[in-house]
């Protein structure tokens, strides 16, 4: 065991730190879920991309600098420590891009990745449906073959799609074989959100901002060139994204370490007025350190060719609960000022509340941990689509 960084890793860290110190906006940008904030976040992405800092781990020809996993963690640590803006491109660069690298054609890679790296095209994930949440494989939106035009016609409804209000493209799963059983017969499609037949209806979240949206599909044509992976293989293709979301890429330790450090600062100024928060401050800080060290373990394993697998579920439950704990404690330290909107703590708190819900709820993650990691007996099987329909 050895956590020292190499010369080149230290040099990379210094470069990133210096660049962020010189370039991170002094004032936080307005929320990305407003028209004004959206534009400013896109500009920020372009600025990062000009330094090849938007997607450090990607190949050079699509905007990256081929950084290692370790360098990626270093980048994230510096990024959050510097208080840099949230990543409006997140769903594309972290959730979709790995799938395009693994399953996309060279043509798709060349077409989609560069504009994702610069933030010019922002992507929204369209998986959930009104009747298909945790039980995603019960989804009902359809894709019908159109041989004449050489493609597919999408119909149905998606919902809770983050950033879809302003995003440019979507990626989602549709049932391409109406006679198929649950997980079979699904296909992964990419589509512009301004295509004919697409209607996006923003949904205000807990804090009133339109952070996600419903998407309606009314005979939307998608050419074969925009099918990702094999027809009918959508479930397996999509599940490789789910692992990314739960595991490492969505929630790097830098985020929690930076928030824990801010919490400690808040304790220094407000602790006298809220001494009962002492243990919670300490536990939040220890939790962030535990997450950081755990992540180095994961990185070591992945660098040796290991896979994330079901361990991603352990990761997901931990970070999502830690995030709430961190922000609840911050609010406790603010006393009666906790309800004020002008502090970053309420913002972070409201956001943290969604962590145990998205990316697979924590109940589903606990099922996965119990069954796949501890080897406990499976749940009795749920109903098939046809049985549900009856």
């Amino acid at each position, binding site marked *: *065991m*050895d*956590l*020292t*960084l*190499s010369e080149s*890793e230290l040099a990379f860290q210094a470069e990133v730190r210096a660049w962020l110190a010189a370039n991170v906006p002094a004032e*936080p940008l307005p929320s990305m879920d407003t028209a004004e904030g959206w534009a400013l976040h896109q500009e920020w992405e372009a600025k990062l991309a000009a330094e090849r800092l938007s997607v450090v781990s990607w190949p050079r020809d699509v905007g990256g600098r081929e950084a290692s996993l370790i360098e990626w963690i270093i980048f994230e640590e510096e*990024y*959050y*420590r*510097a*208080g840099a*803006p*949230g990543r409006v491109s*997140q*769903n594309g660069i972290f959730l979709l891009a790995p799938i395009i690298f693994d399953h996309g054609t060279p043509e798709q890679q060349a077409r989609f990745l560069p504009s994702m790296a610069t933030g010019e095209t922002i992507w929204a994930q369209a998986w959930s449906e009104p009747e298909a949440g945790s039980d995603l494989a019960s989804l009902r939106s359809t894709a019908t073959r159109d041989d004449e035009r050489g493609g597919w016609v999408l119909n149905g409804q998606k919902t809770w799609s*983050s950033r879809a209000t302003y995003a440019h493209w979507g990626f989602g799963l549709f049932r391409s074989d109406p006679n198929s059983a649950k997980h079979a017969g699904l296909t992964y499609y990419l589509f512009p959100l301004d295509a004919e037949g697409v209607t996006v209806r923003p949904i205000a979240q807990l804090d009133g901002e339109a952070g996600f949206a419903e998407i309606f599909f009314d005979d939307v044509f998608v050419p074969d060139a925009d099918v990702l992976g094999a027809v009918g293989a959508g479930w397996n293709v999509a599940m490789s994204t789910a692992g990314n979301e739960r595991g490492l890429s*969505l929630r790097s330790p830098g*985020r929690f*370490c930076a*928030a824990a*450090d801010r919490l400690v*600062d808040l304790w*220094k100024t407000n602790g006298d007025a809220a001494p009962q928060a*002492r*243990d919670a*401050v*300490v*536990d939040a*800080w*220890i939790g962030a*350190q*535990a*997450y950081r*060290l*755990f992540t*180095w373990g994961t*990185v*070591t394993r992945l660098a040796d060719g290991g896979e994330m697998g079901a361990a991603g579920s*352990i990761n997901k*439950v931990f970070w999502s609960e830690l995030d709430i704990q961190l922000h609840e404690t911050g609010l406790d330290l603010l006393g009666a000022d906790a309800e004020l909107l002008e502090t970053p703590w309420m*913002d*972070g708190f409201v*956001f943290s509340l969604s962590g145990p819900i998205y*990316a697979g709820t924590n*109940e589903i*993650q*606990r*099922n996965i*941990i119990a*069954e796949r*990691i*501890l*080897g*406990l*007996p*499976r*749940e*009795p099987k749920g109903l098939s689509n046809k049985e549900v329909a009856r």
Partner: protein
Amino acid sequence: MKFELTDEQTGFAEAITDLMRSADSVVVARAWAAGDTASGAGLWKRLADLGLTALVVPEEDGGLGGTLVDLAVAFEVLGHELAVGPWIESAALAPQLEGEMVTAAAAPLAPYAADAQVARLLSGTAGATHASIDTTRTLTEVSGGDPFDDAAIDRAVLACAAQLVGAGERVLADTVTYAKQRKQFGREIGSYQAIKHQLADVRIALDFARPLVFGAALGEVPVSAAKVYASDAANLAARTGLQVHGAIGYTAEFDLSLWLNRIRALGTAWGTPAFHRGRVLAHITSTAPAGSPAEVI
């Protein structure tokens, strides 16, 4: 950058495990608790022959020259296999080149000397003796003992934390095995979500406690952080393990009880959670730099 055990370290852990299992360490522990320490002394000698008590003594002084990571590896196994005797004192606090069984008090963290009825008290005068909830531990009051330096105390705390992780792992493993076998209402109890989710929480807690133990061994975090999380995780394992076993888990005869009581005892030995939280607070309020959150999904 590499945050995982070497093959040598996992091999070392396996060697200790094999030795303890072949010696029937649980039977040894029960005898020790009943006052018959002969088999315990025999197992102690065999483990000492592996080099356990001299593990962190530098090579030039005749020891094994092991690191604190090696120490944590060994103590996790000692917790898992329910070792008896003053290991924390003889291998971590005051490592013994010749494998001798020694003990000491180190107030305020360890106000009593463990196992002074069989081990040599390093300094001070032995007073009254008390029973522990962990029947394998006998606690003796000590007056006028010499103090230990911070590094020695930190090693003891680290060893205690590692032992807690090992004990928690054992309780989880035995409980999972039980939940797969025990049937009620015609189904294995482990197929019920109320059971699954509790056990999943134990898996999570232990998986995040262990990196803190090794991180503390590397100096990345204070040992107090590891002790706090390790005792919380082990306590969760113990509470859950008891609940999932039902009444059988509440009996002295069933071996689970030995680990439950060990976890209760080690949770406050070598510094209570409140003491260690205080130490962590002192550490972070003197070092933490600022940042600010940036959040999206």
